């Protein structure tokens, strides 16, 4: 996993070196000043040297300075915007998980009834309607027409509602579909029939046996969800003008702030790998079959 991270960062670095033009393409700069800037940023050194220096820096958490905002370190800029993005993201996930689980569980318990079909339809729509359609939709209906929530910027808690909502729809749908499938499969298992044969009440069977087994695989959804959140934040922050990491990233692309682009990409990659790691660990803890290697008689 660390290997993958290493490769990702390296590749990103080299790609950024391919970027056309130089970061300081502003015509107003005289060649002399440009040369000075180059030296300052170490851009005049051979690529391999730059590479080594860069990797060493990254390992220490130093992602260099933004080319656009000259004196500001990329790492600091990212971390500064992190809380907003995280807040909206985590709120979306929590909400999505809760609603998704309820939807999925109800659908499974009322399999082949109206509720089941309804839940499946909602879920399919949820995964098909992208955030960049949903966002404006929410802005229009809940924001403009009904005036319930603000549609841009981030001044107080209320401002986070619509962005999180927009993000959460996909989460709700994915989780609901997943849980429904898992539960249906578990409910058909022998051990559930045995639990019933023990004379346990329906509720007990579901709470103690079905749910536990059905929820465990949910952990595997973590990594894809993280990717979704990352890319989703790019969209949502644009639409709702939220000052988060995503918006900053898009901005840096527009102004060709290569250092920032590179730095944020590295950050995203780290986040993703981190999520994978946590997913693996969590799975190992939750599932007793993995936690305790089978010791047969």
């Amino acid at each position, binding site marked *: 996993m660390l290997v993958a991270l290493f490769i990702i960062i390296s590749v990103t670095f080299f790609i950024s070196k391919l970027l056309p033009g130089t970061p300081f393409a502003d015509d107003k700069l005289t060649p002399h000043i440009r040369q000075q800037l180059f030296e300052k940023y170490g851009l005049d050194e051979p690529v391999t040297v730059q590479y080594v220096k860069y990797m060493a820096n990254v390992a220490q958490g130093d992602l260099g300075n933004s080319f656009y905002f000259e004196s500001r370190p990329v790492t600091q800029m990212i971390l500064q915007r992190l809380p907003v993005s995280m807040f909206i993201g985590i709120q979306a996930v929590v909400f999505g998980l809760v609603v998704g689980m309820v939807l999925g569980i109800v659908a499974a318990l009322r399999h082949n009834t109206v509720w089941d079909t309804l839940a499946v339809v909602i879920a399919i729509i949820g995964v098909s309607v992208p955030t960049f359609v949903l966002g404006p939709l929410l802005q229009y209906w809940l924001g403009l027409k009904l005036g319930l929530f603000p549609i841009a910027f981030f001044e107080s808690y209320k401002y986070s509602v619509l962005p999180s909502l927009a993000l959460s729809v996909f989460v709700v749908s994915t989780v609901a579909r997943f849980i429904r499938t898992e539960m249906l499969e578990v409910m058909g298992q022998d051990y559930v029939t045995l639990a019933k*044969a023990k004379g346990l009440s329906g509720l007990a069977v579901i709470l103690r046996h079905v749910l536990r087994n059905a929820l465990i695989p949910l952990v595997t959804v973590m990594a894809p969800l993280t990717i979704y959140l990352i890319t989703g934040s790019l969209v949502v922050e644009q639409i709702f003008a939220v000052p988060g990491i995503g918006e900053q990233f898009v901005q840096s692309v527009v102004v060709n702030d290569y250092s920032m682009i590179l730095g944020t990409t590295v950050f995203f990659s780290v986040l993703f790998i981190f999520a994978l790691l946590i997913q693996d660990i969590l799975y190992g803890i939750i599932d007793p079959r993995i936690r305790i290697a089978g010791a047969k008689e």
Partner: protein
Amino acid sequence: MASANGDNILRVEDLEISFSTQAGEVQAVRGVSFELRQGETLAIVGESGSGKTVTAKSLMRLLPEANTRIKGGEAIFEGQDLLKLSEKRMQAVRGPKIAMVFQDPMTSLDPTMKVGHQITESLKRHLGMSGNRARERAVELLEMVGIPNAEERVRQYPHQFSGGMRQRVVIAIALACEPQILIADEPTTALDVTIQAQILELLRDLQERIGTSVILITHDLGVVAQTAYRVAVMYGGKVVETGTVREIFYNPQMPYTWGLLSSIPLPTADRSQDLIPIPGSPPDMSDPPEGCPFTPRCPYAMRICAEEMPGYTTFSAEHKAACWLHHPMAPDVEPPVKVRDAR
């Protein structure tokens, strides 16, 4: 082999069960009747598709509600018809009165719950035991079914047990509340032969100690010989012959039973003996035949066999069979050589 002690503890009459599937109505059980005596082991024998598992599960009302219909019949236990009890009353029956052991020990236990907990669940629910007492009892039960190191094992998960051990756990769970009836659905089919013998012996043992009456479902006559006192042979959703083990093995009266016996090696046989399988395959239960279901595969079939279902002919207090060959107007036939020799 526990013998009868006179009283009926369970009486099943004319049980009819159908499933509605995409292919139409499947009549799995079409008029099954039998009795279970106090303290005995009754074996229900049949091929897959004969309706034996469906019958068993119906007694505990464990069949999927959505597409199962109990079309008729009754199952009288302790003065009540099990088929008509409400779900709530049924929950009080399952466990303390009637318990079940399933076929595949690898899938019968919840993989995410400790083995001990799976036992104490039952104890707490039905016997109202406190946590500590229940735990102690669980350990006792594990010891009773022959699991070494029970103290340690009780805290382990199912995947840490082998197949045979898991089946013992399942038995422990079933017997935790000392039920009056234990239904064992092919309890040894998924196990190695040597383990099989151990499990059967365990069942016999426990039965004597606790005094449970056992319904043993199997397709294996060898298992029947080892454990049962009485046998009910099922085919095509009906009971075609019942009797004591001796009667069935030494004086079978129905061609299907003859076929079953001819297709297994008997200990008394000499090596020149053929194993004669029964040709053909079980009937399609979505379109069941009018008459005797065994007709297409029966070497002695007569015209009336395909048209009408025969009634039972009684041969002794326990022994009866349903076959047109017993009608006075039917020709006399000799059962196949093997069966004759066994006598």
